[in-house]
């Protein structure tokens, strides 16, 4: 491959190729797209958290001016309920039927019960108010621990609220705890949050002449096409799914939503295009939530600080139904439950529990922020118990950098890492203890640390697939690289970026190998009708899996290019290398050909090697051998006002390692956003249902996303430890900040409050909770 290296586009902080259309307001998101003859849809949603539907009167709505149709759950004749993609071998997962429109019973506030379709965006919302639904209320189950213990049931026919049990362990746990001289136990709550992409979800379904085109604000257009075909009973070749410009996802658009299926069904029924865009309050009710665990965590260690065992039992609040990956999420965290530490015995026991709430599913980090929160909080708790410095305890238990690839007690092989180096680099950024010592009078300051790794780049299909972990899919990627006759390049990727800058990152990967300018490399994504297949953008996989497939397709193009050049220059293909933008014979760079000249020869095939096909485009599929394991070290300083309980983050520094940087500017941006996502959870955000199952934080006035005024700027650095898993050496970075930051903040708040006698506190650390903790400690 070294023969193809040229001007180093890889590693440059290039401005993004996608930005001109975005900064000029010329992008096309779902709500910017309308088609001739289009109707509008509105959903009637349950105001009850749990109730039997005794009748639905749609007569008034049907007579409403402009209304074309009103459908209920009884009308939707689908092939199957909404999909859930996890069937772990040997584990029973109870999966109550979940329909786009509830049939007999509603199970959470916001559960859709009817679909109103009409000619005008505003009037369908009016008409939806005239659908009269009679509900017979049933007992409501909201509290996770109560739901787990028994009592009222979310789904009476299941006879239990417990959906499934799943365990991952390794090493001798009993021996580990027997060897422990100190054991610390805590109940750690990781509360429910929203993905809260600023673009609401939306769908435009257009069925005509036997074929369906569905445009949706989704992270997974290829999955969507598959499930539309299966649910509607349409052959897959007659379904095209398009993700247009997508305004953020954070996992909340990694889903097959009932609204997508219902609109497709109705469009086929009415033979009209139909569009729906959620309001924010609708999105808060009915776009999947994340997190929502209670974990009972236990760590054992010797007096001198060697960790001997780590055990956690997780209750996962699933909400009322299982959506695409709902029960899977806590298991993703279990794989890295021991974090960056060499712990001989580790076990995670998970129980999935139904409640009368919106289902949970993947939100940025998906199980790994929860796991990291546990281990990183417990390290600080243990250090306190041992009277040992927190960083010394971490260093004492770090996996030895010389031991990579390192197999953990769980049998997971971490690809590469150097945790002491990341921590040393972090400590060189700022003197956190000095900043702490400068607390103004009346304020308390605390320092928090988090040293983390995560598992991403989903993933090796033989591990994650049906006979392994149990996902009913492969997780490969594919890419096609087409060099046009002019030398311009079009790259088609099966990933579906929605803010991650992959049009630029992938163009840099290709330009580096073809000796062209990334400006002349167009990256096409998000349309099942235009390019190769793929599985979408989530799990920090798009560069490590999608980017690698682009690199491999490009390598095939380079192979062919070298054969063409060798033929024309009467040299051997292995003697052709890329020098200053030309493919030339080693040692005589003057006689080379640019990729455009080679493409010209390939498309006007007068002089190609014997038997060579014309054209210059290649396809590559790639399924990785292993996951990748980004890591890093974060630190922050918080300032607490003990009189009000208010917490300010006054310093935040992070060192992250995702392998060799392709575009450092984009990587830093991913880290910034990830950190603030977790600061949001730690300090401000909470999806809160009251005891009746009513959503209390149902819009952006009540659900407190952090603003620019709530957070600081960041001090970042990187270390670059290549992964041996892919040829780029890269790991994911989209979720890392979110995975690392919530324990960092929480540990800092505890550090600040220790002088007042507070030694443990659970998120969210809003003023009321912090103030109450201070009062309790005083009492």
């Amino acid at each position, binding site marked *: 491959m070294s023969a193809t290296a040229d001007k180093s586009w890889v590693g440059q902080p290039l401005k993004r190729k996608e930005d001109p259309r975005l900064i000029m307001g010329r992008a096309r998101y779902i709500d910017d797209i309308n088609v001739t003859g289009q109707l509008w849809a509105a959903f009637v949603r349950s105001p009850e958290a749990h109730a039997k539907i005794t009748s639905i009167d749609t007569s008034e709505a049907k007579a409403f001016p402009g209304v074309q149709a009103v459908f209920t759950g009884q009308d939707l004749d689908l092939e199957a309920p909404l999909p859930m993609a996890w069937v772990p071998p040997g584990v029973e997962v109870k999966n109550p039927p979940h329909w786009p429109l509830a049939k007999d019973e509603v199970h959470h506030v916001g559960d859709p019960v009817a679909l109103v379709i009409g000619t005008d965006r505003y009037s369908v919302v009016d008409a939806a108010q005239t659908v009269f639904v009679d509900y017979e209320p049933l007992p409501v189950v909201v509290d996770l621990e109560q739901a787990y213990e028994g009592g009222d049931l979310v789904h009476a026919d299941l006879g239990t609220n417990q959906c499934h049990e799943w365990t991952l362990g390794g090493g001798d746990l009993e021996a580990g705890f027997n060897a422990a001289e100190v054991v610390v136990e805590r109940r750690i709550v990781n509360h429910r949050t929203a993905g809260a992409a600023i673009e609401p979800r939306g769908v435009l379904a257009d069925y005509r002449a036997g074929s369906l085109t569905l445009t949706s604000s989704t992270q997974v257009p290829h999955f969507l096409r598959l499930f539309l075909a299966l649910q509607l009973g349409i052959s897959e070749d007659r379904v095209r799914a398009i993700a247009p410009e997508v305004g953020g996802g954070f996992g909340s658009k990694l889903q097959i939503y009932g609204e997508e299926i219902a609109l497709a069904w109705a469009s086929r029924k009415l033979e009209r295009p139909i569009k729906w865009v959620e309001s924010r309050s609708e999105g808060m009710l009915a776009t999947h939530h994340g997190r929502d665990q209670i974990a009972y965590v236990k760590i054992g260690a010797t007096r001198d600080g060697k960790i001997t065992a780590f055990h956690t039992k997780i209750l996962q609040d699933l909400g009322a139904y299982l959506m695409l990956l709902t029960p899977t999420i806590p298991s993703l965290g279990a794989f890295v439950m021991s974090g960056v530490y060499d712990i001989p015995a580790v076990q995670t026991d998970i129980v999935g529990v139904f409640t009368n709430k919106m289902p949970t599913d993947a939100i940025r980090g998906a199980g790994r922020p929860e796991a990291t929160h546990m281990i990183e909080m417990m390290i600080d708790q243990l250090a306190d118990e041992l009277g040992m410095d927190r960083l010394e305890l971490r260093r004492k238990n770090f996996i030895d950098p010389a031991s990579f690839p390192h197999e953990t007690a769980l049998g997971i092989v971490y690809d590469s890492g150097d945790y002491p180096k990341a921590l040393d680099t972090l400590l060189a950024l700022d003197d956190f203890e000095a900043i702490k010592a400068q607390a103004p009078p009346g304020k308390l300051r605390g320092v928090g640390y988090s040293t983390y790794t995560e598992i991403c780049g989903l993933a090796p299909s033989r591990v994650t697939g049906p006979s392994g972990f149990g996902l009913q899919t492969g997780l490969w990627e594919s890419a096609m690289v087409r060099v046009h006759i002019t030398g311009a390049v079009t790259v088609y990727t099966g990933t579906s970026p929605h803010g991650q800058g992959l049009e630029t990152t992938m163009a840099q990967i290709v330009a580096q190998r073809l000796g062209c300018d990334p400006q002349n490399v167009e990256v096409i994504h998000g349309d099942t009708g235009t390019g190769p297949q793929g599985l979408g953008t989530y799990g920090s996989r798009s560069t490590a899996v999608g980017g690698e497939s682009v690199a491999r397709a490009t390598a095939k193009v380079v192979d062919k290019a070298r054969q063409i050049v060798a033929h024309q220059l009467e040299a051997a293909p292995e003697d052709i290398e890329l020098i200053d933008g030309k493919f030339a014979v080693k040692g005589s760079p003057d006689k080379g050909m640019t990729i455009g000249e080679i493409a010209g020869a390939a498309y006007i095939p007068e002089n190609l090697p014997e038997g060579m096909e014309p054209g210059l485009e290649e396809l590559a599929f790639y399924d990785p051998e292993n996951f990748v394991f980004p890591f890093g070290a974060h630190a922050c300083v918080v300032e607490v006002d003990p009189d009000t309980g208010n917490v300010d983050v006054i310093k935040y520094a992070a060192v992250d390692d995702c392998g060799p940087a392709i575009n450092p500017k984009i990587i830093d941006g991913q880290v910034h956003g990830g950190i*603030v996502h977790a600061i949001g959870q730690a300090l401000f955000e909470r999806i809160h249902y009251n005891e009746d199952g009513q959503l209390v934080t149902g819009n952006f006035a009540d659900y407190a996303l952090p603003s620019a005024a709530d957070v600081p700027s960041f001090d970042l650095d990187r270390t670059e430890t290549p992964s041996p898993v892919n040829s780029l050496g890269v790991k994911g970075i989209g979720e890392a900040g979110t995975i690392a930051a919530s324990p960092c903040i929480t540990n800092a708040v505890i550090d600040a409050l220790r002088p007042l006698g507070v030694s443990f506190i659970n998120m969210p650390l809003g003023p009321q909770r912090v103030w109450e903790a201070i009062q309790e400690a005083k009492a």
Partner: protein
Amino acid sequence: MAGSLRVTMTVNGAERSAEVEPRLLLVHFLRETLGLTGTHVGCDTSNCGACTVHLNGEAIKSCTLLAAQADGAEITTIEGMGQEGALHPLQEAFWEHHGLQCGYCTPGMIMASADLLQRNPKPNEEEVREALAGNLCRCTGYHNIVKAVLAASEAA
């Protein structure tokens, strides 16, 4: 619905007029009646600021104003800020400093930032952060947005 009324306003320098429902929101007038889809809707409650435009030179949230209330006004949207090859300094700065990721909040962020720089051409970091508190971004963590606004103010 309850009749219609005619509204006329100057949008990005051109006079635009239409018969609209009295309840039509300004943001929908801009997006759907005029086809200026660069202004976005993110929350419906004036919290996110994706719908920020300028009305008579000041930043307002067009999701909480009726088109009728803007009758006779001068409106500037993101489409009126700059074009290919002639970007507004804030557009240049957001691009240069990676002040956007998914881009959905970006038009509102640029309009709110432009409003700030009109009022306070040389803000410090804290003033930028306070001025943008009504514009939410989920992607960038604000770091590069703040950097971009400060850079644009330096360049001016």
